[in-house]
């Protein structure tokens, strides 16, 4: 037992080490001037996608629920975080302070949505759950597209459909502007903050997995009825995993919205959710380190293919299919094992 625990600890530490190593490597590269603008600009998005992939892995891999609405939580987090930062521009002059509070607010708002969506949704199974999470994601997007929020004389005003419905006074300002979303959120996201958030995410997820709660969640995934029969509270554990996952996605959303001057709901459609799912599946379902690596690779890939011009997305698609087959096809796995076996045998022979 002890050795299992130790092995897990080492495994986890290795993952943290990997992230810290990435940070050091990037710092070293930029200090020596080997960093291109392109890679530099991708650092924050990569952190964001890593957080999203790890958090979705908690739902899909650990809890075993196929969710296609992860982008919805990200959307909620991004909007609430940005809203706060813009609203409190005068009250709290320090951007860093506002950003950190915004991260907390984004995570909490998304967690709240995770709970209220999770309660009805988690009763469903498999593909039905998938379509309902997709539906919630689309509802969030659709509503965010027609909502207007303004502020005047210390009062918040919310309206649907048109700006005129806000009835703002002369000195009022509109913060969330329907399809336009929130513009000009100050840029506060940095690579270092991104890495810290990745570490926080890993800390939360890995501790959850290795805790009693995590084992209960995985037991439910593997056999619901058996888990229920030994007295596990199914709803509680599922909801816990789902809302933690949602809140981390919300946090990633805040990171996203403070990296760009333009935030609009149309970004958070089912394609975004599917993109995150691709990271999770390619990295290996339930494999946290795999999620990190595949998020990095798949974010870099289309950017490094920019030289291909028109063929860029075509090549991306082909690479995606090949990687999926090479990684998951039973025959490919078998071939890989045979190769490895040969290799090992050779090694043992040499050792002998």
């Amino acid at each position: 037992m002890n050795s299992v625990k130790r092995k897990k600890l080492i495994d986890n530490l290795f993952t943290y080490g990997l992230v810290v190593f990435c940070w050091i490597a990037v710092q070293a590269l930029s200090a020596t001037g080997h960093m291109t603008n392109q890679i530099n600009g991708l650092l924050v998005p990569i952190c964001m996608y890593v957080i999203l992939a790890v958090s979705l892995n908690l739902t899909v891999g650990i809890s075993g629920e196929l969710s296609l609405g992860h982008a919805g939580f990200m959307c909620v987090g991004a909007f609430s975080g940005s809203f706060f930062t813009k609203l409190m521009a005068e009250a709290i002059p320090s951007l860093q302070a506002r950003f950190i509070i915004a991260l907390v607010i984004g995570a909490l708002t998304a967690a709240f949505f995770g709970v209220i969506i999770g309660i009805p949704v988690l009763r469903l199974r498999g593909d039905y759950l998938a379509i309902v999470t997709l539906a919630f994601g689309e509802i969030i997007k659709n509503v965010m597209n027609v909502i207007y929020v303004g502020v005047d004389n210390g009062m918040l005003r919310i309206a649907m459909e048109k700006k005129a419905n806000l009835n703002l006074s002369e000195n009022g300002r509109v913060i969330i502007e329907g399809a336009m979303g929130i513009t000009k959120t100050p840029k506060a996201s940095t690579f270092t903050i991104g890495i810290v958030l990745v570490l926080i995410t890993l800390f939360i997820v890995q501790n959850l997995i290795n805790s009693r709660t995590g084992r209960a969640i995985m037991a439910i995934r593997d056999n619901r009825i058996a888990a229920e029969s030994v007295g596990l509270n199914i709803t509680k554990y599922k909801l816990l995993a789902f809302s933690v996952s949602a809140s981390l996605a919300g946090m990633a959303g805040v990171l996203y919205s403070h990296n760009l001057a333009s935030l609009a709901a149309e970004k958070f459609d089912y394609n975004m959710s599917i993109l995150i799912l691709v990271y999770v599946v390619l990295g290996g379902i339930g494999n946290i380190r795999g999620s990190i690596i595949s998020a990095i690779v798949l974010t870099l890939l289309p950017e490094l293919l920019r030289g291909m011009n028109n063929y860029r997305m075509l090549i991306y698609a082909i690479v995606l299919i090949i990687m999926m087959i090479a990684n998951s096809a039973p025959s490919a796995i078998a071939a890989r094992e045979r190769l490895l076996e040969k290799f090992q045998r050779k090694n043992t022979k040499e050792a002998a």
Partner: protein
Amino acid sequence: MKKLIGLSMAAVLAASLTACGGSNTAETTAATTDAAVAQEENEDGTGESAEEAPSGETFKIGMIGPLTGDAATYGLGVRNAVELAIKEVNEAGGMNGYQVEYKPEDDEHDPEKAINAYNALKDWNMQILIGAVTSKPCIAVSAESAADNLFQITPSGSAVECIAEPNVFRVCFSDPDQGKASAQYIAENKLATKIGVIYDSSTEYSTGILESFRPEAEAQGLEIVAEEAFTANNATDFSVQIDNCKEAGAELLFMPFYYTEASTVLKQCADKEFAPIFFGVDGMDGILSVKNFDTSLAEGVMLLTPFSADEAGSQAFVEAYKAAYSDTPNQFAADAYDAVYAVKAAIEQGNITPDMSVSDICEAMKVAMTEITIDGLTGSQMTWTEAGEPNKEPKAAKIENGAYVMQ
């Protein structure tokens, strides 16, 4: 064990990819000869000295727009027109005597990808940016270009916020201007008093125009009898919206959205025998060039547009474009073509040379842009304000016998 192998495979892939990236940077550092110029650009100290230094021989103009994805038709129009214009300019001796290099990058109509495209262009040592084509990516890019003080001119980013930064100019009209001008035109020419509106509530373009159309219409004594929305998710069946406008007794249908959807709306209106006056904005332009479109459906459609492919002045451009890309240019292409000539005029006005730093070019361009007057495809005697807004009159066109006729 299995997982470990899978992981190591992924890691090898990741390593090989980063190695690809790495070798690129190595090449570019090797190419860095004139480090002084490169350093000057790196005042923000983010460690980007690995750039290829500008040769000082040519201007490097970048372009950002959606070249794939469902907004690709706008981005490709701009890319082609910029390419065409730059080729012409280079053949005629370049800008201020210097040849121009040009590089387009794809943003998939996504602000995040637009930033990536911008950074890729910065690695290429872009000096002037034409783009981004669509509003939200344009806003995102403008925040970055303002930080770098790099001159940016967007052919078609029409939202107000696109040119909020001092270094950004645009060629097209702003959305509120279009809404206002449309209401004024309808009232002044007494086209109708009962207005029905169908709009795309999922785009800022459509809602932005409508937001300013509403108060102006009211002020002009027009009555909006129906206001019906659609979204990108259900932009196929407009029968309910059309029915509602018809039942409300609309005499004029205001359609502030793009020609792709407009052509479908027109067809469905014809099917429903609903024939009000159709009134579009610049997004409607291009409807006649949609392949296989039954142009009789668009007969009598009015639109406010700065460009028309059938106008006498634009014939040379249209012919050259058709010859090069076997496609009819749309208004995005026309805006982009004008953008290149505006850049050329400003460069010559300010006597700007490629060996200047990005920031110096930007400062000189900002001044020069307000001093130039050009006769472009999208307006004659165009001038620019300090805020970056063009001064040009929107022209009303009416489609008659399958061609745009300027009113």
